């Protein structure tokens, strides 16, 4: 069922924070229905890359396209680039689901309220419709029985699964996972990886930043290794994880794997 179209296209992406150049010309495509894993040492710019994709960070230069449409800028009639309106940027963001390392659930809302907030406010669904939708995604992450709990009453693994349901409820074209299991106790990572594995199987397009190398190798169609703000290694997971050509990637993997 996997089609060949590039649903995400990143071209010469650069991002600096003041004098610090974090991303230094990143280019890649992600095919619809495929899983791309991004690995790299802490501070190598993985989060910044994901955050530039949905414009939580404004790229310094370069382009990001989602399904052929540029994110964050428009091409004017005369061919010049102009910044996009806030409303359009919000609309584009809604098409990319994001799961954060720290879950970032809204603590003053119940599990179900967390999940239906954006469908109601952003997509303007009727409440009843949103509730049906929300329950569907909560059952997908096996948390239907917790819909009336507040996040504080849930374990980290449960919170992260709610966060995944919240992102899915917007029915985005692409899911971004930024170290979704790094804040979890080891015994809780399994339940989250399980959900992510199921999504990958269903053909969800996913960009996954992770240190779970076994998982990455199993689910991804392609892996890239970031170093110094550039793609240092890029290829099918079997090759990137087992026989990387870059010395730095080899060093990084041996550190993470042992």
């Amino acid at each position, binding site marked *: 069922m996997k089609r060949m179209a590039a649903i995400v296209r990143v071209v010469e992406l650069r991002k600096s924070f003041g004098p610090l150049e974090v991303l230094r010309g990143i280019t890649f495509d992600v095919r619809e229905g495929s899983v791309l894993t991004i690995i790299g040492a802490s501070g190598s710019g993985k989060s910044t890359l994901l955050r530039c994709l949905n414009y939580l960070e404004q790229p310094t230069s370069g382009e990001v396209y989602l399904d052929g449409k540029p994110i964050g800028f428009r091409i004017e009639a005369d061919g010049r680039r102009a910044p996009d309106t806030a*409303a359009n940027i919000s609309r584009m963001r809604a098409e*990319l689901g994001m799961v*954060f390392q720290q879950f970032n659930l809204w*603590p003053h809302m119940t599990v179900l309220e967390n999940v239906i907030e*954006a469908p109601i*406010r*952003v997509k303007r669904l009727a409440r009843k419709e949103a509730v049906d939708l929300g329950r569907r995604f909560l059952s997908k992450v096996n948390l239907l029985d917790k819909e009336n709990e507040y996040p*504080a009453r849930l374990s980290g693994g449960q919170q992260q699964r709610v966060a995944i349901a919240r*992102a899915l409820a*917007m029915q985005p074209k692409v899911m971004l996972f930024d170290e979704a299991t790094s804040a979890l106790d080891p015994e809780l990572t399994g339940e989250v990886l399980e959900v992510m594995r199921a999504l990958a199987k269903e053909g969800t397009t996913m960009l996954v930043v992770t240190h779970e190398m076994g998982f990455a190798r199993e689910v991804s169609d392609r892996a890239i290794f970031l170093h110094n703000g550039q793609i240092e290694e890029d290829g099918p997971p079997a090759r990137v994880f087992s026989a990387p050509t870059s010395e730095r990637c080899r060093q990084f993997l041996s550190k993470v794997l042992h």
Partner: protein
Amino acid sequence: MLDNFNHLVLPNINLLLRGLSVTAYVCFFAFLLAIALGSVACLVRLYVPFIRVVAIGYIEFCRATPIFVQLLWVNYVWPELFGFPKTVVGAGIIALALQSSGYLAETFRSGIEGLSKGQRDAGLAVGMTNLQIMRRIVMPQVVLVMAPSIVNQMTVVIKSSTLVSVIAIPDLMYEALKLVNTWFEPIEILTSTALMYIVAIFLISILAKRVSDHFRSKFGLAGLV
């Protein structure tokens, strides 16, 4: 002493209670106004760069001016300058509100700034607008987290309100002083008055503590700040 209490305080209890109700009225509206002014000052300070200095000036002015001076200033100078307030009660409410709004603005600001960036990011990532995020995610949490400080500010308003008698608002303190000046028996009258203030403030604090403990366990608010 008990005897004195019986024939000094009890026969005049209605007078004191009437004063107390004026105190409650003035404090209630002063506090509502303070919350409104404080919210505006805080939002301008944080999000409206070109008049930010005005908000900072306002906040600092309110916090730096003694309540006694503000009462006299609003009561005697404002009518000349701005044509209002028209009543002493209005002046008392505004003066109390001004001072508290400065403190509340700073309380709200620390609440907003203390909220983790991730809370907002999560809203942005699902396509919410800044306004929606402010209304649905930031504000409710600021109110919950800051509830104890907000209530504390309310008790400050009640304490400051004991000075409004200087502009002849017939509040509890005013009635008490009037009785003292009539009977020259300050001990019983002032003690009863103090007790009324203590009970009022105590009840408010207890209620606030109950409510905020409830929030804390329900929403895990400790993790918010």
